């Protein structure tokens, strides 16, 4: 059986236990997270100057897609993966009219043009033919503009008042056109009615144009705010948790909806816990049988490896004094849900960078002949849900905890031998089934302690967070990520 099968069973059980505890708190399914290149989660996310911890943001702004080797496992991209992909997706979208609406726009424009002719015709029948000299003197390009000029200049009373003529948009936006033209002659009624009808006929044309320009303006602003975050458009500043130094250029904004104090309180409350139990035994050859509670079981070459910061590696079923026969309990204590989100874009202030609407609508519209946001070029990603292999998603909640404790109770072992070769003072990192990191830290995330059993053949060893990892400076404190929930903007 492959390590992928081992991982599958481990993550399935972790997901099951986590969901049993907190699953119904979430709007969507909780998935375990494959250990990412960002490492663990820097939960102390903001300093007293309200500058964000870069390492925290690097974690939550990753793009989410399903892991290739294990189903139902979240794989995170590098830092900033989501905003980068979001920008690319937006670039592939345009706001367009469908065939029917394009035809409606043409018809509306054509009706408006017919009405322009009516204005000119009624004007000329009442006031005489408009000459090219009159057009020239008024500085207009055609007869309809001339009538508008006469209405805006003479009939409005602006000429008498020595003011500039009413503009077209002033007339179009007037509450009552008739009241805006107090000096119109009595015979102008019909022409004024014609103009009013024209202005109304133009409304659908303007609405089409406004919708097109709003759609394209929205896309431009979203792309601009995502690519060039500033304080003015809602970008945030970040600091390096090691040096404390703030970075000058802004990053795309995020909001974490839980205070640092609440997260800390939650992590302290270690009696809140999620556990997985498993048993190991000797298999054929060099392999170990592993049976996780509730799963079918599998064989692996090594089920747990402890690598010290000095480079020494201990296989926990082969090291001196250990045995392949043991019961194991992995416990994630002090778990906390951390909800967060990207800075939502507001059209009124043009602040923020994230708005799912154009993407959601473009995916929904697909290749249908619909007016609205549509993909004009391929994005090259699966835009569906995570369960359907969606490759465009972001995290919106993380379930974090302290580093898990691993308690191994050996049978058929040799405690005396083990004691001679094992040091409780050494710290290291743990890998489950050869590839699953249970946290990581340069000085070693785990320390160990052991306890004798009822006879020399039985003893217990417990791995828990090392003093080095618990004593790091405030902004470098990390938590283990059990899992998270996500959203796929294309469908959710």
């Amino acid at each position, binding site marked *: 059986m492959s390590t992928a099968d081992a991982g599958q069973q481990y993550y399935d059980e972790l997901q099951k236990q986590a969901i049993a505890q907190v699953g119904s708190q979430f709007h969507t399914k909780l998935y375990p997270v494959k250990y990412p290149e960002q490492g663990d989660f820097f939960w102390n996310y903001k300093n007293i100057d309200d500058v964000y911890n870069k390492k925290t943001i690097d974690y939550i702004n990753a793009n989410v897609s399903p892991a290739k080797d294990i189903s139902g496992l979240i794989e995170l991209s590098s830092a900033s993966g989501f905003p980068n992909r979001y920008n690319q997706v937006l670039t592939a979208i345009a706001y367009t009219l469908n065939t029917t609406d394009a035809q409606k726009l043409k018809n509306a424009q054509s009706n408006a043009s017919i009405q322009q002719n009516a204005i000119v015709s009624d004007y000329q029948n*009442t006031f005489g033919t408009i000459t090219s000299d009159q057009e020239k003197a008024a500085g207009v390009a055609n007869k309809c503009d001339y009538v508008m000029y006469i209405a805006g200049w003479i009939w409005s009373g602006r000429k008498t008042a020595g003011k500039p003529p009413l503009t077209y948009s002033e007339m179009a936006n007037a509450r009552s056109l008739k009241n805006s033209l107090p000096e119109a002659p009595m015979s102008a*009624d019909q022409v004024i*009615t014609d103009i009013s009808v024209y202005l109304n006929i133009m409304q659908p044309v303007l*609405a089409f144009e406004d919708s097109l320009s709003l759609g394209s303006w929205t896309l431009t602003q979203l792309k601009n705010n995502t690519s060039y975050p500033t304080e003015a458009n809602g970008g945030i500043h970040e600091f390096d948790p090691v040096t404390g130094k703030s970075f000058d250029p802004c990053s795309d904004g995020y909001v974490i909806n839980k205070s640092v104090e*609440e997260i800390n309180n939650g992590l302290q409350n270690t009696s809140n816990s999620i556990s997985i139990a498993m048993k190991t035994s000797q298999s054929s050859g060099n392999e170990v049988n592993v049976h996780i509670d509730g799963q079918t079981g599998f064989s692996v070459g090594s089920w747990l490896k402890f690598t010290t910061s000095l480079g020494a590696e201990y296989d926990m079923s082969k090291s001196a004094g250990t045995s392949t026969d043991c019961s194991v309990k992995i416990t994630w204590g002090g778990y906390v849900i951390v909800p967060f989100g990207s800075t939502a874009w507001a*059209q009124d*202030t043009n602040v923020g960078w994230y708005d799912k609407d154009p993407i959601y609508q473009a995916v929904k519209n697909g290749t249908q002949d619909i007016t609205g946001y549509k993909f004009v070029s391929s994005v090259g990603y699966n835009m569906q849900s995570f369960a359907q292999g969606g490759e465009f998603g972001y995290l919106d909640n993380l379930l974090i905890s302290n580093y898990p404790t691993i308690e191994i109770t050996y049978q058929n072992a040799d405690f005396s031998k083990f004691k001679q070769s094992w040091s409780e003072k050494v710290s290291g990192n743990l890998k489950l089934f050869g590839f699953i990191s249970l946290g990581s830290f340069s000085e070693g995330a785990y320390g160990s302690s052991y306890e004798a059993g009822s006879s020399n053949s039985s003893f217990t060893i417990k791995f828990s967070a090392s003093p080095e990892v618990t004593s790091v400076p405030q902004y470098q404190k990390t938590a283990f990520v059990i899992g998270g929930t996500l959203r796929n903007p294309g469908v959710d």
Partner: protein
Amino acid sequence: MFLLIKKAGGDFVLKIFYKAIYIIVAILNIIITTTFAANVDFSSGELKTELNQALNKEVQKIYHTNIIFIGDLSHKNIKWCYENINQYFNQDTLDYINARVISKSDNVELLDANSFPNAYNQTMTNIAYVVSQKDIQYIENTEQKIMVRKIDIVGDYESIFGEITTSELNRAKKICGYDLINNKYDYLITYIVRFQWYNQKNILPYDEMEHTNNLKNILQKAPPNSNKILDNVKICMNLEKGINSIIDKQSEKRWDLVQLKNNISNPTKANGAIQTINPDTGEVSTKFKLGYSIAPSLVNIEEDLNNADRIIDIEIPLKKDSIVANVEVKYQGYTMLYIHPQFWDEKNMTGWFDEEPIIEACKNTNQDVSGYQFVIMPPYEFKTFSQNGEFGYIKSLLICKYPPQISIKYKGEQEPIDIKKIKKELLGNLVANVPTMQSDAYVIGGTFEFIY
């Protein structure tokens, strides 16, 4: 939060109901953690219905309305202190209340901050005032009738009083103004009727002429043989009135829409938009945002939240086999926040929210009627809550100071015991000494308006 279980019939009995409690706290969006007996089968749907009904029974008594639960975790708490001393609106409060609301059949989901004004803007942009073919036809036909009458009026005048000459036109221009006399009809109406037949001193204002019941009464210098002309003038004016009432209505509604659209996309101090304050940094936004208002006053809200006697206390009966118990849920320090997007005030030209154009457009679109119509169909479902509507906004939120206190009472026993192995973690409210602007209140539920 306290979790007390009154009476125990041994661990077995307690475990029976752990899952029920677990489901309830999950519905209420509180995290409570313990090892629950996984084999007890209480349906979360049933419990949610029970809880909803029991809660609404109490809410009805107080507020005469039903509330709906909010399903998503990120909207569990609200910053209740919605403005500072300088009346800058709390940005976090605004980010909560300006979310678009989507119905999820038995609860609602609130989308991202700003999602309601954003979607409202897109929707309003897609609306135009459209004139029906019927109205256009009516205007055309009436104009034709008016034109024929005008020709008649000039003809009748000339047959009675003689042909209108160029010199008479020029004389009239001198008296009434060159721009007002362009042709024989202008001459007849403006110079003859409104000047000569009026008082020969000034021109009778058109409004006065239009609104009089008897034209002949105010045109005292009109000769006796002018009756037919004046009758025709009155008929003409009435026909024009018919057109004008349509045109005026169109202009008014068009103007309304233009102003609304302008206020939505260009919020300013003058049109009633608001500035916000970042509750963490105290920074005041330089840009204006579409405004909301919240009632009651902060003083009232704070008093209610701190009033230990304001308790909504509900009990849900649970039965499993022969074991009967009541789960008691207490919400302490409750109060209702009434939330309004800033309504469009036509008189002062302030505000941005008016649902009428959308409601009218939903009704009118694809029909030959004059009125607001969607020129482009917006991408939202304009339906009711029960029809899974997608275009809702928050009308009110029922909040309380603390997440609910939950206890179980077993019938016939009195002694309360503390179940120490049940641990809990609360989201919010437990952080001591946070500044007022950052203080959270627990959101029990709300009422929501869906536009359709």
